[in-house]
């Protein structure tokens, strides 16, 4: 896939969503050291249906969201995209998707250990929950 592709998935209003990806660095699967203490990962959440309102901006700990070993479906049943596995996973709390019917964007901005800039972007239509 292209690095500028946006991954889309319908979610529930107020429902958690888990974002996963496999990224590569110089042709090899990315590892924690590619970010390291000198880099950073920031997660932005926007409500695209409300003039791109910034819902949240959080710094993530790279050791908590990047895996040095690819997580295949056998290790993480949530990953069904392919047989290779993922090396990035983040659970986004459903409180960020509070309005049913809105479209939300989740952006991950990576700054690599050497200052490299890299983004992974997801978009979600939030199905309304009538009981909320």
């Amino acid at each position, binding site marked *: 896939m292209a690095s500028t592709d946006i991954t889309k998935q319908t979610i529930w209003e107020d429902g958690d969503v888990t974002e996963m990806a496999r990224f590569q660095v110089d042709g090899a699967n990315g590892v924690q050291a590619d970010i390291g203490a000198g880099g950073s990962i920031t997660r932005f959440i926007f409500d695209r249906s409300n003039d791109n309102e910034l819902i949240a901006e959080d710094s993530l700990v790279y050791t908590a969201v990047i895996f040095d070993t690819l997580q295949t479906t056998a290790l993480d049943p949530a990953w069904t995209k392919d047989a290779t596995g993922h090396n990035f996973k983040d659970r986004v709390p459903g409180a960020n998707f509070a309005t049913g019917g809105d479209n939300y964007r989740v952006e991950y901005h990576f700054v690599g250990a*050497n200052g490299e800039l890299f983004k992974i972007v997801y978009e979600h239509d939030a199905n309304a929950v009538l009981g909320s």
Partner: protein
Amino acid sequence: MILDQTSGAIQQLSTTPGLNAWTWAGTSELAATKRFCLAAAQSYVDGAVKTQSLVDGATEADSLVDGALQTQSGCS
């Protein structure tokens, strides 16, 4: 005559009036940067038997089919 303009990270080295020799006194070389790219991505919603993430612009046929595991591991 040497003018060391440290605040601007630039040094002006000149011994001949009227002749200015400029040298870059900042970072002498750029740190080696690596190329990041996205090989695959997926979202997962709790409680779903199967979640089906669509990449922007992809058609249904491009998305995951039950039981199929794509083997492509590269990215562009």
